[in-house]
C-alpha cells in the first residue's frame, strides 16, 4: 500500500491519449513485436494466475464429503453442486461453526467509517498543503510523506497502551449507559485505521488537488469566498475522481486487513472482522475445507464486487500512487 513518487493523474491520461492516437501505426509495430509464443506465454500466465481462485470457488459449492476426499478437478467427471456450505458458514446456530454472518456485519461496520473518516481529514489537510500558503508547508509535507516509513508494527504497542488508558474508560461508560452496545466497540479500530491511512491519503489527494488550476481558486478568493466555501464548493467537486479512487483503495485495504484487527479489535463476535475469524479458522480447523472454502469466498465477495464494479477507479488510484510523474 505504501506508494511512492508523485503523479499528476492528468499526465497518465495524456500518455494514454497519445498512445490511442498512434494506434494505426502501433498496430503495424506491434505485429512485429509480439510472436505467437508470447501469446501462448501470456495465456499460460493468465491460466496459472486464475486457477487457484477458480479451484476455491468451485470447491466451495461441492458437497462436504467430496471436498475432503477428491480434488476439485474431479467435478468435471462427477458434477455435483450444493449451497449447504454457505448455509452452514453464514447462519448455522451452533457454537462450533463459524457463523460468519455476524463477522460480515463487523467487517462492513469497520470498513465504512474506516474509509470515510480518513478521507475527510486527508482532504482537509491536502487542501491546506496545496492552497493555504504558510511557511514550512514544504517541510511539513515531506515529513508526512516520510511517515509512511514507520511500519504499522512500530506503532501498535504504544497505540494499544494509549487506547487502554484513554479510550477504554470511555468505552466502558458507553457500554454501561446504552445496554445494547457491548463494551467492546469499533472505535479503536476506526481510529487506528484512520491514523495509518492518513500519510498516504494526504499525499495522494495533495497531488491531485494541487493540480487544480490556480485561476479557479484565485477567482473565488477575489469574489470573497472563504477557505471553507472554496473547499466545499470548488475543491471537493473537482477532486471527486481522486477521492473516489482513494476511497475504493482504503475500503479494500480496511476490509482485507488482519493485523490492525488482531491488535485493536477484541477478537470476539462483537467487533472482530471476517479476516480475523478466517485466519483463526485456517489455523484451528485447517482440514475443515468445506467451511474454509465457503468462508473464504464470503470474505472475497465484497472486494471482488468492488473490484469488478469500480475497476476503472481502482486502476486509476493505483497509477496515481505509483506511476511516474
Amino acid at each position, binding site marked *: 500500500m*505504501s506508494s*511512492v513518487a508523485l503523479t499528476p493523474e492528468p499526465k*497518465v491520461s495524456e500518455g*494514454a491519449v497519445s*498512445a490511442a492516437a498512434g494506434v494505426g*501505426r502501433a*498496430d*503495424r*509495430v*506491434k505485429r512485429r*513485436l*509480439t*510472436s505467437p509464443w*508470447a501469446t501462448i506465454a*501470456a495465456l499460460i*500466465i*493468465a491460466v496459472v*494466475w486464475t*486457477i*487457484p481462485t477458480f*479451484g476455491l470457488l468451485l470447491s466451495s459449492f461441492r458437497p462436504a464429503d467430496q471436498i475432503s476426499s*477428491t*480434488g*476439485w478437478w474431479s467435478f468435471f467427471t462427477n458434477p455435483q453442486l450444493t449451497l449447504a456450505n454457505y448455509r452452514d458458514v453464514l447462519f448455522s446456530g451452533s457454537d462450533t461453526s463459524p*457463523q460468519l454472518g455476524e463477522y460480515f*456485519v463487523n467487517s462492513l*461496520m469497520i470498513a465504512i467509517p474506516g474509509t*470515510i473518516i480518513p478521507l475527510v*481529514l486527508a482532504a482537509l489537510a491536502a487542501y491546506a498543503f496545496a492552497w*493555504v500558503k504558510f511557511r514550512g508547508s514544504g517541510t511539513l509535507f*515531506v515529513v508526512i510523506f516520510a511517515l509512511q516509513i514507520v511500519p504499522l*508494527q*512500530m506503532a501498535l*504497542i*504504544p*497505540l494499544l497502551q494509549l487506547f487502554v488508558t484513554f479510550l477504554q474508560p470511555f468505552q466502558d461508560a458507553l457500554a*454501561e*449507559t*446504552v445496554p*445494547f*452496545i*457491548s463494551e467492546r*466497540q469499533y*472505535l479503536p479500530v476506526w481510529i487506528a485505521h484512520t*491514523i495509518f491511512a492518513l500519510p498516504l491519503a494526504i499525499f495522494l489527494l495533495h497531488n491531485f488537488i494541487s493540480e487544480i488550476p490556480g485561476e479557479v481558486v484565485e477567482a473565488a478568493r477575489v469574489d470573497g469566498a472563504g477557505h*471553507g466555501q472554496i473547499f466545499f464548493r470548488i475543491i471537493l467537486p473537482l477532486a471527486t475522481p481522486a477521492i473516489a479512487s482513494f476511497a475504493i483503495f482504503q475500503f479494500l485495504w480496511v476490509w482485507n486487513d*488482519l493485523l490492525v484487527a*488482531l*491488535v485493536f479489535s477484541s477478537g470476539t463476535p462483537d467487533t472482530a472482522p471476517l479476516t480475523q475469524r478466517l*485466519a483463526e479458522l*485456517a489455523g484451528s480447523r*485447517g482440514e475443515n475445507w468445506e467451511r474454509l*472454502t465457503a468462508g*473464504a469466498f464470503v470474505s*472475497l465477495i465484497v472486494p471482488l464486487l468492488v*473490484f469488478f464494479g469500480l475497476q476503472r477507479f481502482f486502476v486509476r488510484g*493505483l*497509477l496515481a*500512487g505509483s506511476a*511516474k510523474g
Partner: protein
Amino acid sequence: MTTIDLIGKVLQAVVGLAAFGVVMALLLTFLDRPEDKPRIEGWRAAVKQGLRPRLIIIAALVLIAVLARVLYGTASWMTQELTNAAIVLAIVGIGLVLLQWLLDRVLQRARQAVRSAVMRVLGAVLVVVLVLLGQAAEGIPALDWVTPALTQAAVVVGWPLAAALLATAAIAFLPDRIRRSARLVAWLLAAVAVVVLGLVLEQGQERPIGVWPWAAAAAISVVGVLGYVADKDDDSKPMLVFLLPAALLLTIGLIYPAIRTAILAFTDATGTFNGVDNFVWMFTQPEALITLGNTIVWVILVPLLSTAIGLAYAVFIDKSRGERVYKMLVFMPMAISFVGAGIIWKFMYAYRGAEQDQIGLINQLIVLFGGEPQQILQNSPWNTLALLVVMIWIQTGFAMVVLSAAIKGVPTEQIEAASIDGASPWQRFSNVVLPGIRSSLVVVVTTISIATLKVFDIVRTMTAGNFNTSVVANEMYTQAFRSGEPGRGAALALILFVMVLPIVVYNVRILNQQKAIR
C-alpha cells in the same frame, strides 16, 4: 446474532460518524472569522448574523439535558451521575456559547492583539475554574460524576494549559517577531510541564497514570507549532483548522508511538532497561536468525519475480486482442485479502497420504509426474518458497498494471524508428522500451519491497510462523502480543524500520527532484 446486537453495531457506526461530523462542523465554524466579514452596525444585525449556528448548538445542548432528565427515572440505565453529567455539561456549554458571542460583539472593534489577549485570559480563567471545581467535586452533589481519574487528568493538563494561556496573553502586545517565538516556547514549556506533573503525581500513587500525559504533551506541542506557523499572517490561519485534526492524529498515533517503540526496544519483559540484549537475542538465537534470513529471502525474491513476470506479461499482452480481460485475470488477486489468498493457497498445497486421492492441485501434479506427495508447508526450507509464491501471485497484478500504463506512454515513433533501423524485437524492448519505463520500474520495485517487508497476514494464516517460515513482521507480533515480550517485539519493529528507511529516503529524494523540476 440477535437483532439487538445488529442494532447495537449499526448504532455504533451511525453515532460514530455523526459525532465525527459534528466535530468537523464545529472546527469549520472557526473559519468564520470576524475580519473576513463586513463589519455590522447595531445590535439587531449582529444578533441576526451570529444567531443561527449558535442557536443550533444551544438547541442541541438543551435537548441533551432535557432528554437526560426525562429518561432519568424511566430508563433503568440512566443513573443519577449520568443525568447530572449531561445537565451540568449542557449548562456549561450554553454558557460558553453565549460568552463567546458576547465577546465577539464587544471586541469587534478592538485591535487584534487586544482581542487575542482577552480571549486567552478568559480561557485561562475558565480552565482554572474547571480544575478547581473538579478538585472540589466531592462536596458538590451535582458533580458526583467526576471521578478521581478525571480530576487528576484535569490537574495534570489544566494547570500547564492555564499557565501557557496566561503567558501568551501577556506577550500579545510584543512586536510580532518576538511574540511568535515566545508563544512557541510557552506552549512547548507547557507540554514539558504536563509530562513532569504526570510523573510527579504518579510517584505517590499505587495505580500508574499510564502513558496519556505524554500523548497530551505531544498534542499541546503540535498545537503550539502549528500556531507558530499560522501566526505569521492572516491568510495562513485557516491551515490551523484544516491541518489540526490530521496533525494531531499523526502525532499521537504515529510519531509518538514510533518514538516509544524505539525506547521500548531497549527494555525487557518487565519494562526495565536492558541495553542491547534484545538485539543480541535477535542476532544470536537460531530461530531469530532464521526469521531474519527468511525476511531477506522474501525481500529479494518477491519484488524481483513479481516485477519480472508482471513486466513480461504486460509486454506480451500489449495491444493484443482481449487485453482488458487478460489484465483483469492477473490483476484480480490484488483485490483479495492476504488472508483469503492464504486460504486459497493452503488449499492448493493441501496434502493427503500417498494412498489417498490428493485434493491439493500441487500435490496432484507431483503425483501425476510420479513423485511422492509432500507436506509442502512443513518441509523447510522449501515452505518459505511456497509462501513466497502467494505474495508473488498477489503483487504481479500490481506490477503489471503500472508497467502496462508506462509501456503505453513510450512514444510509438521511437519503437517504429528502432524497427526501421533493423532492431530485433528483443533489442527494441531492451534499448527503447526499458529505458522509457525506468522510473516506473523503480517505483514498482520499491513499492513491492516495502509491502514485502511488512508482510504478515500470509505467514500468519498459512503457517503462523512455524516450521521455520517466520518473518520479521510476524515474529514481532508473536513476541509482543503472544509471548509477552514487548521489548523484543519493539526491537524487531525497529529492525523493520531500519530496513525500510533507505527505500523511502531514496523516494523522498526523487520526490524533491520532481518538485524542483516543476
